[in-house]
């Protein structure tokens, strides 16, 4: 796939006609991108704005004057003077037929919204086009791989529509190339190397594939634990508490319970990406074993709750005693990778200026 986005000198302003209105665009924009800017709401299933346009689902076809067949707007560059119609009776009929075909090969159109960020896309389009007609009945494609023993990613390819967004996000965004397309035609199937489980592949469990899946064929196993938990799913914007990158996340809660994490597509640091920790390692938040107060191990050998002033004094005395007894090089500091710059700076100041040694490191370096 040659990169339309790579060859984009965004300076010349050109004009085309979109549904009868003159609109401006810059060289290199696709028809779909221009149409999106003008809120034409052209339907898609294989499109993800972060990925190279692929042209598989054909729902985004539009009519271009002078061209016999409709063209896929996602892969067709807009050109000066082009006259485009995004919604005609014929186009809408093709879109409905395409969606009826998709419904006919898919087992479940309804999936829990906890499956993933894009999991409701197919359901919404099928409802918009009233495509649950039962026409085109026949064999269903895809074979579930829900026996994959990983704890994070549900692989229920019974619900796969072969848009390959998962394969493309894994290659183009994450650079893992852990999954690919095997076989061809109706027998097409998403696979890891040699059909293995994900944990025996190059997968890093970042969850990007789950979040871009438009049908819930790939699902968030951890969030889906709470599919039956009563209550509405609420989203709260936050920042991932792990490393210093500061990825934006939307925390999913039901009542008082944190049930899952979504990457924020508009997060300035991550633009929809997360790693395995930010995506899946949130169980500590409401874990019963989580510390609520400082603990000091007293002379009886047991840990006892105390107040912060006492705990800090106790720790400071410990450092002082160690330095007095064994010298300044008896202290070695390892800052947490979860600490932001300011905290990491304070930590090294404490070790260098406070303890008088350069024995300072950070766990992110490992």
């Amino acid at each position, binding site marked *: *796939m*040659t990169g339309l986005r790579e060859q984009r000198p965004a300076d010349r302003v050109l004009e085309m006609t979109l549904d009868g209105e003159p609109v401006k665009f810059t060289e290199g924009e696709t028809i779909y991108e221009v149409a999106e800017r003008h809120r034409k709401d052209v339907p898609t*299933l294989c499109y993800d704005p972060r990925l190279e*346009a*692929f*042209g*598989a*689902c*054909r*729902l985004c*076809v539009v009519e271009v004057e002078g061209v016999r*067949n*409709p063209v*896929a707007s996602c*892969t*067709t*560059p807009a050109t000066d003077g082009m006259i485009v119609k995004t919604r005609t009776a*014929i186009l809408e*009929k*093709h879109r409905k*037929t*395409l969606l009826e*075909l*998709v419904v*006919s*090969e898919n087992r479940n159109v309804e999936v829990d919204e906890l499956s993933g960020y894009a999991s409701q896309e197919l359901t919404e389009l099928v409802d918009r086009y009233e495509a649950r007609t039962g*026409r*085109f*009945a*026949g*064999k269903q*494609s895809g074979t579930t791989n829900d026996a994959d023993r990983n704890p994070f990613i549900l692989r229920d390819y019974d619900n796969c*529509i*072969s848009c*390959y967004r998962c394969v493309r996000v894994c*290659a183009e965004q994450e650079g893992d*190339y*852990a*999954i*690919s*397309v*095997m*076989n*061809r*035609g*109706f*027998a*097409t199937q998403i*696979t*890891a*190397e*040699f*059909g293995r489980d994900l944990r025996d*592949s*190059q997968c890093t469990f970042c969850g990007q594939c789950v979040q871009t899946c438009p049908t819930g064929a790939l699902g968030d196993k951890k969030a889906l634990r709470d599919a039956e938990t009563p209550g509405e799913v609420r989203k709260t914007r936050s920042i991932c508490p792990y490393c210093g990158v500061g990825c934006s996340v939307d925390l999913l809660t039901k009542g008082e319970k944190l049930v899952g994490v979504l990457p924020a597509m508009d997060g300035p640091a991550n633009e929809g990406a997360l790693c395995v920790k930010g995506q899946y390692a949130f169980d500590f938040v409401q874990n019963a074993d989580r510390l609520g107060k400082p603990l000091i191990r007293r002379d009886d050998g047991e840990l006892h709750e105390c107040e912060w002033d006492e705990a800090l004094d106790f720790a400071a005395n410990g450092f002082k005693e160690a330095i007095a007894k064994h010298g300044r090089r008896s202290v070695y500091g390892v800052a947490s990778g979860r600490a932001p710059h300011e905290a990491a700076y304070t930590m090294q100041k404490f070790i260098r200026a406070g303890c008088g040694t350069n024995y300072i490191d950070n766990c992110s370096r490992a």
Partner: protein
Amino acid sequence: MPSPSDQELIGRWKGEPAPLLPLLHAFHDRDGWLTDEALAAVAAGLRIPIADLYGTVTFYHHFSRQPPGKAAPRVCTGNVCGLNGGRELLAALEGDGATPMPCAGRCDDMVPVIVGDRALVGTSAESLVHRATPLPAPNPGGREECVFAGIREPGRATLAGYRKSGGYAALEKAVGGMSPSGVVEVLTASKLAGRGGAGFPTGVKWKAVAEAAGDPKCIVCNADEGEPGCFKDRALMDHDPFAVIEGMTLAAYARGARVGLIYLRYEYPETVGILEGAIGEARAAGMLGGDILGSGMRFDLHVRRGAGAYICGEEGSLLNSLEGKHPFPRNKPPYPVTHGFNNKPTVVNNVETLASVPPIVARGADWYRDLGEGEHAGTKVICLSGDIRRPGNYEVPIGIPLRTLLDEWAGGPGEGRSIQAVTMAGLSGGFLAGEDLEVTLDEPCIRAKGSFLGAGGIIVFDDRRDMVRAAHDAMEFFAHESCGKCFPCRIGTQRITERLNGGTGALSLDAWLAEIADIGETMKATSACGLGLAAPLVTDSLVRYFPEQVAAHVENAAAGPA
């Protein structure tokens, strides 16, 4: 001789153009099938992600992943052989691990069976023999030919025989006294158009590549003759390989290209040796290489063998396949003339197109244009097969009546039979029947009937044949070969096949027809490549010409399995 190590094989191919397919074939030949270890070695050697390589290998149906692998017979059960003993032969060879393959391009001499790298033919397990590709019969109409003009000359497949019968006169003429743009002008004036089926004017394509920026430019010969009922390129390559090589060299001269690749379908195993032998002879004689005909022109050729995927005849898929990528068609624009092999300006031309070039350059544009009937320019090879007395390759003047070819040249249908229908463009043009058999063999006339001439395959069905079954077999082929990228083709070919095999249960005739029509309309309007755009012509023409057979089929399907 000890078998080569993984590293020796990788070292042999790593620096060559388009290394993945030949490297996979090298492992396939050595081990008999592609083991996990072989794939891991290839992935590491060529720096391809292992999951990508695994997925891509499964796309090609002639790469085996387990024993008996390459040694097991592959038996043609294609659209012609399937009606003429292919399935029975497959059953007879089941004990040897035989598996079916779609049309293997030998419809004039059935039934082809590939065992290892040998192509056998026969109609029973006992009668399988090795036979050379049939030579086209002398033109039955006594008409002057272009690509077949020299093919029957003795020794034509050797360099000496080729030169003796006029070969390389065109290249000498071009290099000696024509400018590259002069060659393009001759091609443009001749009105030669792509003979692989798309019919794009050859001169226009060449000019676009000549003018495109980027180096090295590439010439690709599309010899992935996968369309069922087509076997002309096989005859040309086996009996006149130097014509293809000279055509490619002329193309290189006209466009400033230095690299040439021949993408040959897997099902022609013996053609590999014929082409490579001819390329070696040409190179040794200074007709290829660093100083062609002493002119300083540089151009060399490489044969790359496919592995069983019809879609690789689509130029975007073909280029992806050469580049070692998953062979999905490419989105256009950009087109190969600016962004082709390795993103460089590339022309993809069919074998017949390229073989037409030397005679046209040698004898002139007017000569070629005048070979056509009336207003039509030039000739076209028609591959005639099925229920006809003399199947074979016929070079016809464009514009002659189909009936002339069927009845006068090829002897008509068998004794006491009549022709019920013919296919056009192999299978891709669907059927012509009834009064529409009175067409002339040119695109304007055939397109007016909702079909197209395409690559020139015509399969004849006489009055014994069940046309719903014929349509089913055609659609099953398209479903089998659909790449799986675009939704309308991937699901549509499957759904139409199901409706033609009677597995849809109690649909009323009206509902059946409406479903077929709606799927077909959407496929024809929205599919991403020619496969999905053309496949519904099969059902369109079935419903148009054979409504009674369709009604009976739907009624039987509704009544349940017999």
